[in-house]
């Protein structure tokens, strides 16, 4: 219904854009949280993502768009169908699903198909938003205002990659692997650490203070509002170039090498910052590798590591709630200490 502002036309906000691109190249990095000032285009950037995503292969007719190449992740229907012969394949768009505030639990996890139940007396499962987001992106705007019981649900499903529904006398489980993308304004409340942990990257979005960027933002937004179709057409070539870059980087990703020296640097950085467990290191590596792929490199270098470190680590430093030096500052300090200015 509402047309999306083109991604390439977004001025400034380089860190947020880069994080979104990294998530598009390697969904395995685990999502992006964009937290920051009002009126900085957080949701505009996320909604622009859909137009950049390449198409993907899915089992034709499957409600969860199962990946035919990943036998272990097929839903029960597809597994059943596969015993009768090869699965038909179709090309579909990668879904970007909005989880609107005020959504009720049954719409999120799925529930009894009311229409069929009322009309035919059949007990059938109607998939929810989690099913629609499988193999795609789930976007929660104002994620810090999401009600607690939905947060619990997201935390659980995001970790397991599977949605288990036990309600209305139904017992259904289906794959629900999605990249969680959230945005919000920290003044309206903080996020639970468990939910923070589900985001691979977190970016701090600040309002641009240089005049040239601000003028550009206002001018482009104004042009878009006046004639969205023409504006999108004017930027179509740029968006197509970017999409091609994502496709190339995605294909290139498995061949990007991570030298031992870079691995060691990543570990040292995480130790210096006192991050919990191995997740921080893994995410740091994956984001650095996706960035190297985007840059067309065959090997991750320290430069990529340094570039992604703030996004990959800043939300994992919540050890001491009373330390008020910003986490970005702490990451940058550790980077300077380890690698020199």
């Amino acid at each position: 219904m509402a047309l999306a502002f083109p991604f390439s036309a977004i001025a400034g906000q380089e860190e947020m854009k880069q994080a979104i691109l990294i998530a598009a190249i390697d969904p395995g990095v685990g999502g992006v949280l964009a937290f920051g000032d009002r009126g900085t285009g957080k949701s505009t950037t996320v909604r622009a993502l859909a137009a950049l995503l390449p198409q993907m292969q899915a089992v034709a007719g499957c409600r969860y768009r199962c990946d035919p190449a990943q036998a272990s992740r097929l839903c029960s229907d597809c597994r059943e169908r596969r015993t009768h012969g090869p699965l038909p394949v179709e090309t579909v768009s990668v879904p970007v699903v909005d989880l609107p505030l005020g959504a009720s639990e049954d719409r999120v996890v799925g529930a009894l198909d009311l229409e069929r139940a009322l009309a035919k007396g059949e007990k059938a499962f109607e998939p929810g938003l989690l099913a629609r987001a499988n193999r795609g992106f789930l976007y929660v705007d104002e994620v810090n205002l999401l009600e607690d019981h939905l947060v619990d649900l997201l935390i659980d499903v995001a970790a397991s990659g599977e949605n288990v529904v036990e309600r209305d006398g139904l017992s259904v489980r289906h794959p629900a692997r999605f990249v969680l993308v959230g945005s919000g304004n920290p003044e309206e409340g903080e996020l639970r650490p468990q939910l923070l942990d589900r985001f691979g990257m977190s970016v701090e979005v600040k309002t641009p203070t240089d005049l040239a960027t601000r003028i550009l933002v206002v001018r482009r937004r104004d042009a878009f509002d006046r004639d969205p179709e023409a504006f999108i057409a004017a930027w179509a070539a740029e968006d197509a170039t970017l999409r091609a870059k994502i496709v190339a980087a995605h294909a290139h990703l498995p061949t990007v090498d991570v030298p031992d020296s870079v691995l060691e640097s990543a570990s040292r950085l995480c130790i210096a910052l006192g991050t919990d467990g191995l997740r921080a290191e893994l995410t740091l590596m994956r984001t650095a590798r996706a960035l190297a792929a985007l840059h067309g490199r065959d090997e991750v270098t320290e430069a990529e590591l340094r570039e992604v470190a703030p996004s990959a680590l800043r939300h994992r430093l919540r050890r001491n709630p009373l330390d008020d030096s910003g986490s970005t500052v702490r990451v940058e300090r550790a980077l300077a200490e380890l690698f020199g200015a």
Partner: protein
Amino acid sequence: MSEAPSPAQMVAALLAVDPQGLGGVVLRGMPGPGRDGFLAALRDALPEETPWRRLPLSISDSRLLGGMDLSATLRAGRPISERGLLAEADGGIVIAAMAERLTPLTTAQLCAALDRGMVVAAREGIGVEHAANIAVVALDEGIEEGEIAPSALRDRLAFLVETDRLATPSAATRDEVLMARLRLAHVEISDDAIAALAATSLVLGIDSLRAPLLAVRAARAQAALAGRDVVSEEDISLAGALVLAPRATRIPQSEHEEAEPPPPEPETPPENSDKQPDPAQGQMEDRVLEAIKAAIPAGLLAMLQAAALRNQRAKTGGKAGAWQKSGKRGRPGSTRRGEPGPKARLNLIETLRTAAPWQPLRRAESASLAAVLVRPEDFMVTRFRQRQERTTIFVVDASGSLAANRLAEAKGAVELLLAECYVRRDQVAMIAFRGKGAEILLPPTRSLVRAKRALRQLPGGGGTPLAAGIASSAALAEQIARKGGAPAIVLLTDGSANIARDTSPGRIQAGLDAMEEARGLRGAGRCSLVVDTSQRPAVAAQNLADAMGAVYLPMPYADATGLSRAVQSVLPKD
């Protein structure tokens, strides 16, 4: 200047020309002729069929967003959705009454509709999207400084108007508005004009990028209304005066105004004129800026200074109270089978869901003609656990009577308690008293970082206006309780006082005043705790605690766990 309408008089007409583009208006002030006049002028200027919906404060999500139409569903035997208020208002105006009390959630729903021009409902068995191109008229009746329409909403509405000062709006006829709407699509605005508005907003210290964008749209609407095809400099000035001036957080100094005290600035702004490549553009900017400065109400400078001081302490000042207050609506307990009762409400939808699969079966064995056959065993209930939000108000004696090392210890104690509050997700507020009076260092917040910063920057020394400290905490507690919160007061003092309520020095009067305030607190029935910070447990603090009806705790015995246990015992329970 007498014949031309003032900028504020143009707001209703501009909004009528481009309601969705401009987002709407915040009308701040009590009901009265100013507000009524504005609403009447807006309504008269809008096309007759324009939807006009009033948003009640207590609206439910299903009414706001849309949901299942239960009676139609039962009648038809299949799910039928009904549109919510936002969808009904498509193409028109939503009046948000008592906007200063909007919950964060309702605010977010309104903002989402404003941003996207549509509403997405995913509720109760229904998933639908409806167009919702709306403009919002927010009636902000806040009186105190902190009571204000949510900043997320203010950010999206082009105009912020004080209704008390509002003269009769300049009337635009429906025909004029319709002509202007037709013209609007063709009105051009030069790049320089956009640059001037962007630069001006930066100079005025306006962070949000929505402000200059809304100003561009306002300028265009004004040009259309005046019958111009190109936005003129006057249009730009008017738009700046209406959209940017009320959002200014600092007033730039020009050469002739050096007599004014410079507003304190936390950081140097990226400066204005020296970066302008084009001198002509710089001139336009200057003239626009002058027009805007003329529109900035007198007294704003003083307010800005106060705000800037606050900001230094607590990064984001003015927006306190109203936002954080309503907070959690509590988690609706799980829905399960059971009998409805006082604490469990019948959940009709879930009940119908439960009953649905059995219908064909039941119909076969029953002669009833009812569309849906519901039996008691289908009843589903939802339990609500409405949790009152707790706010702990720390009142800290920062005067000279508290020796420096004791102040440090008191700070340490507060820090421990802060960590506790963080774990419980409680709000905290902080008041310090020293010198002549008391000051709210930190309005209620859940941000631990801000609390800690406020605490660290707490200066010491000066007289001990204990009465003022207690009075200030009583007022804040009252404010919190009025908003439905549960306040608790933690007073850190040695019980001595030497500044009376009228700020005159003198131990005796100061002591009497303090006791009187303390009794007042008891009368209001506030939960409180007095932490005695004197070297040895003193009679003074104990008497004060008695007068307050407070739990008394001498700090020599108040280690970390002791303190937090004491606070736990005082705080209202869930």
